[in-house]
């Protein structure tokens, strides 16, 4: 079963990047996920200052705005999609993720399966 781990940074630096995280920890975690053979996909997102939001109104007109910028809410810094047998295994991987520490959080969402 596929689960998406949405990694929210707890503290955000000046440029909208996750603050206070150790690159070494992330590399070690990424290696573990790959070597466990459970990785479907995963990306780390560029700093929030580079984000752009698009909305399309009822009249079909598009509105493009700079941002969003980090306010008080946690912001998505990256994700993994992993394929594991059940929620307990997915929660274990989420708990091992460096993004779950230091005030950050990892939201675990099952990927919808439309074939079942």
């Amino acid at each position, binding site marked *: 079963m596929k689960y998406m781990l949405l990694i929210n940074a707890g503290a955000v630096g000046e440029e909208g990047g996750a603050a206070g995280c150790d690159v070494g920890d992330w590399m070690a975690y990424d290696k573990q996920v790959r070597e466990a053979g459970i990785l479907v996909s995963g990306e780390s997102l560029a700093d929030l200052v580079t984000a752009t939001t698009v909305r399309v109104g009822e009249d079909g007109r598009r509105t493009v705005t700079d941002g969003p910028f980090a306010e008080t809410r946690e912001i998505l810094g990256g994700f993994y999609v992993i394929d594991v047998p*059940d929620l*307990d295994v997915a929660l274990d991987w989420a708990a091992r993720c460096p993004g779950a520490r230091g005030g950050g959080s990892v939201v*675990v969402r099952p990927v919808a399966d439309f074939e079942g």
Partner: protein
Amino acid sequence: MDERPAGTAGTDEASASVVEAVFREERGRLLAALVRRFGDLDLAEEVTSEAVEAALARWPVDGVPSRPGAWLMTTARRRAVDRLRRDQAYAARLAVLQAEADRPDLAPVPAVEAGELPDERLQLFFTCAHPALAAEDRGALTLRYLAGLSTPEVARAFLVPTATMAKRITRAKQKIHGARIPFRVPGTAELPERLPGVLQAVYSIFTEGYAASGGPRLQRLDLAEEAIRLARILRRLLPAEREVAGLLALMLLVHARRDARTGPDGGPVLLDEQDRGRWDRPMIAEGLGLVPVALTGGPPGPYGVQAAVAALHVEATDVTGTDWPQIVALYDVLLALAPSPVVALNRAAAVAMRDGPEAGLALLDELADEPLLRGHHPYPAARADLLHRLGRHAEAAEAYREALALAGTEADRVLLRRRLDAIERPGAAGT
């Protein structure tokens, strides 16, 4: 272990009660074994109900079979196979689930033909109390699936409308299914993290029964007994876990006082006024026997410590003869293990018994700003009692009125009104 005498077709009433007794015990067991077998709670529930219906129709006529559990299991499995034949797509999906459920870290599929049904309820306990489910739903699921209560009965237990409870159970089931919360017992490394959730779910059923949060009655004994029954099952399944022994001991020692807790007016009778002759001595003996089990062989857990406090209460001949210094010491241990303002409140009351009302009141005043005690009627009630003992009647009356406004049950209000009357009309009610 649970071998029951085989009944024969006697009077309708007698066989109906035998049938009912069998179901109380077997329903949860059957459901757990079927969930384990098919990996699907919905299917297991459906065929469990069908097997029970078949038994209701057949047993009063044919007599209760010698192995009722095995009879129910065989019937339920046949129904499941029929259902899967009718619905091939569903069967294909379950086959995938089943393949994954047969991972080597899980116990092998039970062989029913061997006779006694293997007990797989432990898996179901851990699923129902899974941390990924809402805390308020865990006790409800445990009552529904392990105690075998119907949804309307569970709704009554938690004092919510049936439709609300049905929605909550459906939502929780969707999460179990959709997020694939597994039916498994956590490994040794995980157990210390997961067991408290299971114990909390059972204890929440007990506390709902012991001090109903609303409604006319003070105690709902059926719920307390259901919780004790569940804890006995857990104790059999996890004999080495000291906190399971602690929880069972605590509930037995508290429940043993049930008959003495309610006065003729329906109001609660507090410990100092209880007729100790009405305590259930065999139940106390059973509870006291478990306390050493809970407290030896490692550091104590919160249920073991609370059981020790309850043991000191039942071992005393009266309130003044109670070992209050020891109770205060146990509350200190409990506060270190599981800090909570409610425990601090109980400790303050014990300190008042040990060192006098002034000392207790000083501790209570330190808790005045605790958000968790705001709206909690025992807090102003405890203050009122101590103020009363200090002769500060106007303040005591004020605190009783505050507690009255917060109390959830009529029974609690009866007691508080009685105490308030005693202050406002001294002489009329003694004191």
